[in-house]
């Protein structure tokens, strides 16, 4: 197949993907039933009493609760989470599902610790880097780029 035909196919697919990137951002509200940090910082009172789920970075921990920083679209809001004994350090990441209360607080029904500390994040990136490197080494052991046709070809023909 001619190189230019393949280039056109790639271009079309990438344009559709680019369209999805914009579409997903524009229609985000349709897929997230809960208010985000930007919604909360502008119209907090209107969400009080509602169920919500947030992802947040733990900033403080204490007896029966913690404080988390929730971010979206460059807006950040700090919320107190009550009714949880989750084992997490500041810097860790949690998911909180619960009811929004007055004065920037969530009465938690369920708290899930995603990263218990900053180190958990490093672990994930470490394992991913090993995966990426291993994959590339393996892939190019079996495949090579044919520079005449600009296709990937099996090394053993």
């Amino acid at each position, binding site marked *: 197949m001619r190189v230019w035909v*393949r280039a056109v196919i790639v271009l079309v697919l990438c344009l559709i*993907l680019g369209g*999805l990137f914009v579409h997903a951002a524009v229609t985000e509200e349709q897929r997230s039933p809960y208010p985000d940090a930007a919604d909360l910082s502008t119209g907090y009172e209107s969400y009080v009493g509602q169920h919500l789920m947030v992802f947040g970075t733990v900033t403080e921990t204490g007896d029966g609760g913690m404080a988390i920083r929730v971010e979206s679209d460059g807006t950040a809001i700090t919320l107190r989470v009550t009714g949880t004994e989750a084992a997490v350090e500041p810097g860790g990441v949690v998911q909180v599902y619960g009811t929004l209360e007055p004065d920037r607080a969530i009465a938690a029904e369920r708290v899930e610790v*995603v*990263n218990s500390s900053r180190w958990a994040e490093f672990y994930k990136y470490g394992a991913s880097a090993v995966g990426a490197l291993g994959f590339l080494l393996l892939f190019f052991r079996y495949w090579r780029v044919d520079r005449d046709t600009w296709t990937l070809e*099996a090394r053993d023909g």
Partner: protein
Amino acid sequence: MADLLTHLLVPYILLTVASWRVDWLDQRWVIVGMGGAAIPDLIKLEIVLEEKTVESILGHPFSYDPLSTLGGVLLLAGVITVAFERRHWRRVFGLVTFGGLTSLLLDGIRVYADGRASVWLYPFTNWRPPTPSLYVSSDPTVLVVALLAAGTVAVVDRRIQASN
């Protein structure tokens, strides 16, 4: 999401086991399938180029989220397919899509505090499938299980190859 290494190991395990029955499915094709498993992880492009930066350049809202969905997997599987010779397209597309789907499914069973996974079937539906909430992404147990299973499969595979 699970780490990239786990994502790559799952299709390795499944496709290697399948290769014991399917003649054409050798190591090089298994690796092509593994490549598909990396597609949903491309959402981490965010680390290199933030959505905010792209938004300010484009002047439109912008989100990488579709990369971790069925739509993103199908489109990028198409892009990867075209990089191969025409006679391999059907096979490459099938394998890459399969790899991508294993990653989406694996991520679809991780923990969500409200019991519903992300909208990984986007753009076909905005429905959030239920999740059994089996693990959180930083849980090393997932990787350990995947490594043990992959190791076992690799050993068995070697024996089968040797006996042929």
